[in-house]
């Protein structure tokens, strides 16, 4: 809240200042009920039983270029929130690039088979002072605590269960686009070969290898993700909301962006929970006879399902975070 980039919430009845038009409030009639999104609404109603793990959770996926800074900050945020979300994260670049001693000498690593620990150790031995001061070592330190190593979006086999050991590195490295690049740092794959998926932060819920929401941190990544999903031919027939939240690639902005993404996630999840709750309230869960009409009795805002509320949620969120331009589409896994 204290962040200057986050627009201060307007005084209680928010004046619709951008467009003084009657339509704003009339579109779905959703404004009234939706306006104060209850952060991570926990269904504490007598009729509803929360799941073992604290209610329904959307599954998230954060994406940036190298799966190191922005997506990992967001990954950490989403998984250490008061009600943590199932989260996985990826990078869309061809290689993991970390700043080096000068702008044209980046440190380059392969995706999928280099662990954050390996990078950490290597950079530590190269120039401890440099990488400590430019924030790379602290960043890797953080990442080590979140998951094993950076993963590449394009190599993600959607829907393949993420259980047990991580897929062997050799398999994913056959991608022709990475050929001709520097060889992987020695021993990276072998020493950490017994890395388990379940050690990742935000693992519970991601076992099936699918997600409901993808959040990219740069328009280029959004393009790459959408393009990749189009190319894959959507074999799973599963809808996925792909968002972009434009975050500059530095540590400070990543922190801000992470907070903003968590806020978006909370709003989305609240809507998804509300959708499930509405049905129960309308009598569907009890198997009573009033179910058929009960559905119509909910207020308009609550009756609108999760998916159709997404544009509204994003628009509201954008109001609060005007410096992080957002983008969205509904794609298919």
């Amino acid at each position, binding site marked *: 809240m204290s962040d200057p980039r986050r627009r201060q919430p307007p005084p209680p009845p928010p004046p619709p200042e*951008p*467009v003084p*038009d009657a*339509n*704003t409030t009339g*579109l779905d009639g959703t404004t009234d009920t939706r306006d104060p999104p209850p952060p991570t609404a926990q269904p504490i109603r007598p009729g509803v*039983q929360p799941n*073992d793990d604290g209610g329904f959770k959307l599954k998230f996926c954060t994406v940036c270029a190298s799966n190191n800074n922005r997506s990992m900050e967001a990954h950490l945020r989403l998984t250490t929130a008061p009600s943590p979300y199932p989260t996985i994260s990826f990078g869309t670049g*061809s*290689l993991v690039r970390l700043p080096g001693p000068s702008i044209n000498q980046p440190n*380059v690593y392969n995706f999928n088979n280099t662990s954050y620990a390996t990078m950490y150790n290597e950079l530590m031995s190269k120039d401890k002072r440099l990488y400590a001061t430019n924030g790379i070592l602290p960043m890797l330190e953080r990442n080590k605590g979140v998951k094993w190593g950076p993963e590449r979006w394009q190599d993600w086999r959607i*829907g*393949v*269960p993420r*259980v*047990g050991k991580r897929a062997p590195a050799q398999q994913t490295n056959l991608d022709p686009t990475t050929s*001709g*690049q*520097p*060889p992987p740092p020695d021993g990276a794959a072998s020493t950490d070969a017994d890395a388990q998926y379940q050690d990742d932060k935000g693992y519970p819920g991601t*076992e*099936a290898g*699918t997600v409901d929401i993808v959040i990219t941190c740069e328009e280029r990544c*959004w*393009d790459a993700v*959408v*393009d990749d999903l*189009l*190319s894959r*031919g*959507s074999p*799973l*027939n*599963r*809808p996925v909301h792909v968002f972009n939240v434009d975050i500059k690639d530095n540590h400070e902005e990543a922190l801000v962006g992470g907070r903003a993404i968590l806020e978006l996630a909370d709003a989305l999840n609240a809507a998804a929970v509300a*959708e*499930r709750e509405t*049905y129960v309230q309308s*009598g*569907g*869960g009890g198997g*009573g*006879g009033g*179910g*058929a009409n009960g559905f119509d009795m909910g207020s308009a805002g609550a009756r*609108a*399902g999760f*998916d*159709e509320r*997404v*544009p*509204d949620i994003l*628009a509201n969120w*954008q109001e609060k975070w005007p410096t992080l331009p957002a*983008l*969205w*589409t*509904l*794609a*298919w896994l």
Partner: protein
Amino acid sequence: MASPRDIVHQLNQARRIVLGDAKIYPQVVPGVLNVIGANAHLELRRWGSDFLAETFASPVLGADEKQKLCLGVLDTLRSYLNRKEEVGEDEDPSVVKSAVQCAASIYPFVFRHTVVNAGDSETWGKMAGIKSSILRRMDTAPAGVRICCIKFVARVVQTQTPGLIADPRRPEQNEISLALVPREHPTIPPTNLEAEASGLLDRLLGVLQDNDTDALVVTATLNSLSTLVQRRPSISTKILMTVLNFNPLKLAGTPMTGKVRVAIRSMTRTTMSFLLNVLKRNPQHQLAIRLQQRTEQLRHGLIEVFSENGLGKRKEPDEPTDGLDDAKRRRIEISTANGTTPQQQPPPRPSHPPLPPGPVTVAQLFTLSRDPSAAGFHVGPIPLQIVAQLVPPLLQSIDQRRFDDAINAVRARILERGRLPAADANHAARTATGEDEDDDYDPSLGFPGHDQVMNRLDQMPPEGVGHDIAVTAFTLPPAPPMTEEQRRRNGKMALTRVFGTLAELDRETKGKSGGKKAGDGDVKKGFNRLSAAAAAAGGQDREGWLTLVIRLATRATFGLDGPEGDEEEEMKMKVEGEGDESALMRHGQQGFELANGIREALVTYVVDDFRRRIDVAIAWLSEEWYADRLALQSRRQSNDSSDDDGDDDTARPKPAGAVPITALPNYHHWSLRMLETLSPYLDVKDGRHLIRFLSEIPQISREHLDVVRLIANDPERVGLASQALLYLIMLRPPVREMAIDTAEELWRGNEDARGPVGKILGRWRPGVLVEGGGAKGEGGGGGEVKVEG
């Protein structure tokens, strides 16, 4: 009986097991079915539908297993979807969503099952029941369910449209499609299926044809159509045409709420991604040009919509209601719909305002409108041919009575003025600007330039002019000679103004191309380029102005070293060719400084947005080359006549026949400069632009190729550089040898480039690969060391 929670807990354990080992699915799925059926608790149905959707989507479960399993789940799916009919209450939307997803996944398998087991009409009947249930709810269901239905329909269309047969002998290997169905299949006659698919496709495309504005439905449709375009050539053109005609910016006219912004951006960007994806997959697509045009158009449109609104500028509602009085509105209205103007004119005004006391301008004399914006509108920028088009219909549409009124009003004003003494602003203007102005004075023309002069003078204190100047011919005293400093400053100012105009025109073009149709803009562009080239930039538009700027840079100083130029000047020209900037400055003085200033600014201008302005760079460098050639020619001629050639040769030895690039000092310097400035900005995807640049500039030297070679130092851009080289080798024979040399250097000097460059050399200079074969292994090791270091 255990509580639903406990059962879910147990089910989750079962799920964990199958996720770990897909082989167990055939045992688990049937076992689970009776726990999650229609009579089960809501939590269990939710879990069950999710689980079924997940199972049949899972890539680790084989297609054959899925085909066997799917028969068992049809009843469960139907009970979810028909809950209203069977139990009497609506099913939970999230259960329906998952059920529809699952149905989409199993549809192809049931289809193939039916193809193989021709007699099993019962299974197909169940599937058909599910299908009709889904189709029924498609238009009425909540949007979240509706998008799943859309995806289901896309899957049905994909299944029931003929696909490619990879291997006719092994039908089980082929993709499931209508092509698998024998012509006389008893249960599923292919003609019926194809007709159904075609109808369903129309239903899908209906979303785009109706220009639906629900971003969720539109993006879901677009994203699910992509597979059909990829895999089903028979319908891909139809789909593409529909997408090309879809206008995602339609909402731009409505008030910009946050949601509308999100919707516009989402739909537009998704459409662009869709088109680019098609283009990327097949760059030789028959519609490639249209795909590209459309994406560009959408890109501009998006920028336009948001730049206008970003400034808080609002659309139509805020504009004045009487359309014709607003300058901007009038331009649009008249150029698009001539016939509508008369109806929109406000009713005749009761009276015309009297002239203000004191001196008046011609413009004031003829201005009858009270609206300041209409009165201040400058007619000058409207092109003459448009004016010519406008005037006849305007004259016809003017109400005769009003016209007479207006004429009378002006007449009355003139008479009134005539009674006053002549010492008014007109008089003062004539004396101040010289006598010849008098001839231009023709009130009936309403000459805009004239008006402006008057207006400006009008703001001067009138009495000062009137009394101090005698009515004689007035000549301006010659300006004092300018100092170096002044010259520099004026040069700079000229430069700023030249590029200021360009920036303005850029903005204008952007606005126009966004608003109009693509075809329109392009025709104009092409035509204007020609006319501008012919008339050396008389045009008001960007193309014309660019030509002017370029010519200003390349030709402005051209005469200074013409045939009459003495020996010394020529020497300086040559020195400047070697890159000595100070000599260059001294030589041309202001002219030269301006020219080089413009060149600098042109480089910046192009680099600012090189993807769209690379053509400017090429046009400029071509002009540069041409001007240099002319200069060289004229120098040679004069040298021939004065018979002194030795000087030239010692400075730059040149081969007979071709003109060495060093003899073209400006071209050489600036083309290199352009390329060098550009190269750091080239992205991996910018191969097109680099290749275009290298292939279209008129002459290439070793130095240019060295720059290309340096690009390859970035491992990510190796492909970019090697592609450029390959293009030059294949399609630009004069530099082929040079390019191959460069490739060889690359191969020897750059580990990362070995792969792509090796392919080039393999074809064009295989000898290098053979001799370098020994060094290869060693080189690999070296690369590793380099990375580690």
